[in-house]
């Protein structure tokens, strides 16, 4: 199993196959991957692309062959065959198992492995940058924990809405809970997406490998201006990031959002949830 996964992991190999297959079909490419683990998702998709193409190709070729060979014409008779002999049924069952083993088991193995090794293996330590995100109709609010390293204190830093900055090559852990309705935090260039559901704090991590300015989209319908609920993610060097952070406003837990309920566990500027 691990060997198969390892073989599939050869990302250059798959990039080559894909390039040869689709060269010229420019639009099949997703946005440039600038994250540490995005290639894992691309690999699963590429493997699935490959087997799906093979299976669908077989079906289409078989159909074409049957259409030509077995078309109704004078002198041609259908064979009275119910396909219910043991031989036929075992071939049918074999087909089911073949699909299961060649597609399901492999992509499930890859997916579980990626979840264990990357997406659900949250980074720990001092180097991790923690960010709290509160989407609202129709903007993104970000909160950094300031000098004391704790949220829900008076030195929390709140940059301008819709502008998120992160340092490159540093693990970023986000916790997200919306103010009003369900939103979804989606950065196409990082292949990551997490819903923001009212009353729940969701968490996710990612790491940038390149600097640049990327778009954040809201992927869950949140009202009439859903389509322009756009944010910007600026990935910069650690030095630039620290300079930027120092210029941001200090602000404590917010109470002018109309959220009077101090017991609300997802009130903007919640205390960081250590174990989710």
């Amino acid at each position: 199993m691990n060997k198969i996964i390892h073989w599939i992991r050869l990302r250059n190999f798959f990039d080559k196959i894909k390039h040869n297959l689709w060269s010229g079909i420019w639009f099949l490419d997703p946005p440039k991957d600038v994250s540490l683990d995005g290639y894992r998702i691309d690999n699963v998709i590429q493997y699935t692309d490959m087997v799906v193409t093979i299976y669908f190709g077989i079906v289409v070729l078989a159909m074409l062959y049957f259409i030509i060979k077995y078309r109704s014409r004078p002198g041609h008779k259908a064979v009275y065959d119910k396909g219910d002999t043991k031989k036929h049924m075992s071939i049918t069952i074999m087909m089911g198992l073949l699909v299961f083993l060649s597609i399901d088991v492999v992509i499930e193995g890859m997916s579980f492995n990626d979840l264990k090794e990357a997406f659900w293996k949250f980074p720990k330590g001092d180097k991790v940058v923690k960010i709290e995100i509160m989407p609202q109709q129709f903007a993104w609010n970000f909160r950094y924990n300031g000098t004391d390293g704790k949220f829900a204190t008076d030195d929390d830093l709140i940059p301008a809405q819709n502008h998120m900055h992160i340092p490159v090559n540093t693990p970023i852990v986000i916790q997200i809970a919306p103010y009003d309705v369900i939103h979804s935090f989606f950065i196409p260039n990082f292949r990551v997406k997490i819903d923001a559901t009212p009353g729940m704090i969701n968490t996710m991590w990612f790491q940038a490998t390149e600097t640049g300015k990327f778009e954040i989209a809201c992927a869950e319908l949140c009202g009439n201006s859903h389509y322009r609920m756009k944010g910007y993610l600026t990935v910069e060097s650690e030095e630039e990031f620290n300079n930027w952070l120092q210029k941001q406003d200090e602000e404590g837990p917010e109470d002018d959002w109309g959220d009077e309920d101090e017991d609300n566990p997802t009130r903007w500027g919640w205390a960081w949830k250590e174990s989710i």
Partner: protein
Amino acid sequence: MNNHHNQSFWTKYIFSTDHKVIGKQFLWLGIFFLLFGGFQAMLIRWSLSNNLEALPWWLFGDILYQDSPMGPGIIGPDAYNQLFTMHGTIMIFWAITPILIGAFGNFCIPLQIGAPDMVFPKLNMISFWTMILSSVVLLASYLLPNGTAGAGWTSYPPLSTPVGGIPGLGQTFWTLAITLMGTASLMGAINYITTIVRLRAPGMNYFKLPLTIWGLFLTSILNALFIPIIAAGLIILLLDQVAGTQFLIAGGKATIPGGDPLLYQHVFWIFGHPEVYILILPAWGIVSDLLSVFSRKPAFGYKVTAICMCTITALSGLVWGHHMYTTGMSPLLGKSFMFLTLLISIPSAMFFFNWLGTLWRGALKFETPMLFAMSVMWVFGLGGLTGLYNATITSDIYLHDTYFVVGHFHYTMAASVLFGGFAAIYFWFPKMFGRRMNKLMGKLHFWLSFIPLNLVFFNMMVMGYAGHHRRIFDPSEYEFLKSVLELNDIITTSAFILGVAQILFIINFIYSLIKGKISERNPWKASTLEWTVDTPIPHGNFSSTPIVYNGPHEYSNPRIKDRDWIAQSDSL
């Protein structure tokens, strides 16, 4: 048999208890909403390609959206949200459901199992008129000052509750209409199940049922099991909308603690995933039968196909969590749902293989219903295989809520079910209305639907792969979507061709209804029981209860010399 009493116009055509008339009523209702929902799709495409431009005259730009805040005839973001919400709602619940389940369920079940009518004819009538009531409520929401519902066909709270910021009563009307429609479906489902269990003709055991009946039977079981669940969810939602409760509201807008928006998503998808199979199972059954009829050979591995359909039915109730991988659901649950979802590919692959087996060594006749049935193999093949991406947690993280999902479910639900429905209409039209449909127009309709449909939905998947997220009023808002804007126009053009092609179908339908060639009793030389009765079918169907000797697909049996088929009720 019985029921040969005199009928007035009202009891014969309007408040009829005859399953054939009710079937036709559902068919008219379904076709009306199919055109209505389809027209909305055209408006959606216009808006996506020609953002903030006034509608042209051929999309009724002089009549529609005259009081739009953006200017006369212009679709704004609010109107756009309402369009795709109602397009999804109408297509699923008011177009596909009445055509496949309402029309062909009613028409085929008693005729194919050899029964005089449904077991509860009055319930059948009430079911149709509840459906009409739900349609009235749905259409009434277009008259509301703030327009219809706009929170998507899933209507996730809190967006669909008053705190979500969608003005007016549209969401409330939506909830009421779906609840009424569910009630109608539930009445139909009870009727179908009881009829199939109790009214089968002598000799018609379960493994002699046509696969169409298998599909409708399993669909009805799913309906009976899962509609009560969505009803519970909708009633909670309705209370939040009108009674000030906050079962489904949390976060900064909640004034009462303890609400949970995720509860609705679970309840919705416990119903919502089986709903996909509710829609597609009848289409699978119909396609399996039609492939056999037009290959002039028995359905390959009939029993295996039936058992696979049962297995999928059972699994469909256990996989709803794959719609919710990104909601922050427990990782353990996510893994279980992924495993169960992927299991569905085994029975699906098996019956798909059986479809190919049916064609193998047949004598294929490419009549219009056969073309549509074979195209279902194509579109369902693509739709089913692309489900793998969405079933896998990691690839779904990226593809969830993108056009990839839109393309995928249009292939499975829209294309497969629509083409299955067209196959059924072309196939049973001679028995329903006693006339043949025009062959040339039928084939033209097929090619003008099949090619543009693929251009539309395949390109949608490509766009989703490029990261294009769903329900976006103006895709040019995003820099990373610039590369697919060109594709957007290709889709729009194809969608318009697809839309215009359906006019051909309507012309063919109405022309054949009035002027079509009078059909013989069994034009397709099919062996199921509905072809043994007279056309037009008398009230009470069979002159004497048929006795069933053969399986549903007795074609090219070497023991019969003079013809290549034998009816189920003919003894060898």
